[in-house]
């Protein structure tokens, strides 16, 4: 429970941490679009290099993130397996147990894996280097033009920031309840299916009840302090756009342009390598 690194802010002080949340949000969006464009393998190699470089810069240990995804591996493998055996276009790559596996299936599955890995890494860079509150300020900023059409930008940002704020609390609470029930002989790992179902019920009900209680308490506390969602408010921390943000955006633009360029001119990178040699 405690080892969940996915989506958690990691308090280092790197260049990436110091960037404006708005820059990082734009960057995330740009890179994600690149990942989902149908780039060829050169494009993926290029994107992977960029992402690995960013991970290094922000001091994130990517292996620990994939380790923390362990519970999802089974499902992933399951899906990939079906992907491999069900796609039946392209040439036959090899035959196993009298069943032919097609090249297209292999390539497409590989593409899914790479895309997922890149996607997880990119979002982790954002969440690990940006405090949840700063993140919501960023989101609110980009949504605020919509206020003209009565879109509740502030309310949505507030809701998101409360939700983010409560993730660690919920995890802590879950851990506490797991321990309390373990002391009453609940065993989450072993036991028959029926026992396991009971064990899960003994966790979920208290968790629900305490979450409802908490949200009610929070709502009351906010009301008691006169919170008014449509009120005009000042902010404790002011977002500042700095020179490094400008550089980050320039570099990112170059990366994105290069990626798109690579799609259309797959030989470009090869040319560069040859030229370097």
């Amino acid at each position, binding site marked *: 429970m405690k080892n969940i690194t996915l989506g958690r802010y990691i308090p280092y002080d790197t260049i990436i941490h110091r960037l404006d949340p708005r820059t990082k949000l734009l960057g995330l969006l740009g890179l994600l679009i690149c990942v989902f464009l149908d780039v060829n393998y050169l494009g993926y190699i290029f994107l992977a290099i960029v992402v690995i470089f960013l991970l290094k810069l922000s001091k994130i240990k990517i292996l620990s993130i994939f380790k923390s995804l362990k519970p999802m591996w089974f499902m992933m493998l399951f899906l990939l397996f079906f992907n491999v055996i069900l796609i039946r276009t392209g040439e036959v790559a090899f035959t196993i147990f009298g069943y032919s596996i097609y090249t297209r299936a292999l390539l497409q599955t590989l593409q899914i894996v790479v895309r997922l890995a890149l996607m997880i890494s990119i979002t982790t860079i954002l969440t690990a280097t940006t405090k949840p509150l700063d993140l919501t300020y960023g989101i609110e900023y980009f949504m605020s033009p919509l206020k003209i059409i009565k879109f509740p930008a502030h309310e949505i940002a507030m809701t998101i920031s409360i939700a983010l704020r409560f993730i660690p609390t919920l995890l802590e609470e879950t851990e506490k309840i797991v321990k309390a029930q373990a*002391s*009453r*002989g609940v065993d989450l790992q072993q036991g028959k299916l029926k026992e396991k179902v009971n064990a899960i019920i003994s966790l979920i009900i208290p968790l629900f*009840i305490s979450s409802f209680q908490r949200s009610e308490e929070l709502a009351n506390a906010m009301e008691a302090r006169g919170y008014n969602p449509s009120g005009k408010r000042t902010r404790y921390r002011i977002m500042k756009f700095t020179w490094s943000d400008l550089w980050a955006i320039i570099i990112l633009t170059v990366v994105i342009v290069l990626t798109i360029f690579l799609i259309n001119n797959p030989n470009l990178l090869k040319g560069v390598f040859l030229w370097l040699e």
Partner: protein
Amino acid sequence: MSIKFHDVFYTYLPKSPYEHTALKGVSFEIKDGEFVGIIGHTGSGKSTLVQHINALLLPSSGEIEVDDFLIAPDTKPKGVKNLRKKAGLVFQFPEYQLFEETVFKDIAFGPKNFGVTEQEIRPNVEELMKLLGLDLNYLDKSPFELSGGQKRRVAIAGILAINPSILVLDEPTAGLDPQGAVDTLDLFKKLNKEGKTIVLVTHEMDYVLQYCDKVIVLKDGAIEAFDEPINIFMNRRLLERVGIEAPLVIKIMQQLIDSGMKLNYGKIRDVSSLVEQIIKSRGDCK
């Protein structure tokens, strides 16, 4: 059922920026049948320490012996379920753990997990409810309809129903009404007299003086003292160092002694025993 800690260290979230070593080389032995208090400033590691006793936390290094069970780093001890049947832990704010439809079912949940059927446990549950001052009408009510104090009692009953030989209580009386707190502690004392080993974490020094045979004083994850309550509370320098206030009874007694009265302080545990000693020392004047 003795409890032995051998040089136990515990680190939360190791190798992360949030790393925090909450226990730093803790060693002690609690003998069978003792009533031991654990005190210390908030954050000193009391809750962390007691969660090692039933292997909810495994030490980062060092080891713990509870009867025949050996709790060591990395792997859960064999038969951890049996260990948890023998060593029951009541958490700080245990009302979190309630979830069943009725109070009876919730109290019977623990025993059921250890293989005792609801019918078998029924008489015990009723007995426990009486002992904890809960009306039997509540048996078939939902635990969520109860008041905070009643919930607390149901949660405590849920652990007592397992009938563990070691009972670990993490601030069981925080938030209970004064009478309820005393009643609950009297119950623990009674169970202790019947042979159970009791470990009580608390911030209430009066209870420590009144109920405990011995006290462990924790400071920043290390043991600062392990002695009888009266010796701890008479040691003003120690109290100052760990930031604990002596019970009122002790303060009064110390002032009486400072002003020249001769008191046999080894016997003083509460107001009535203090008064008794005062009367004794004044006996000559009567």
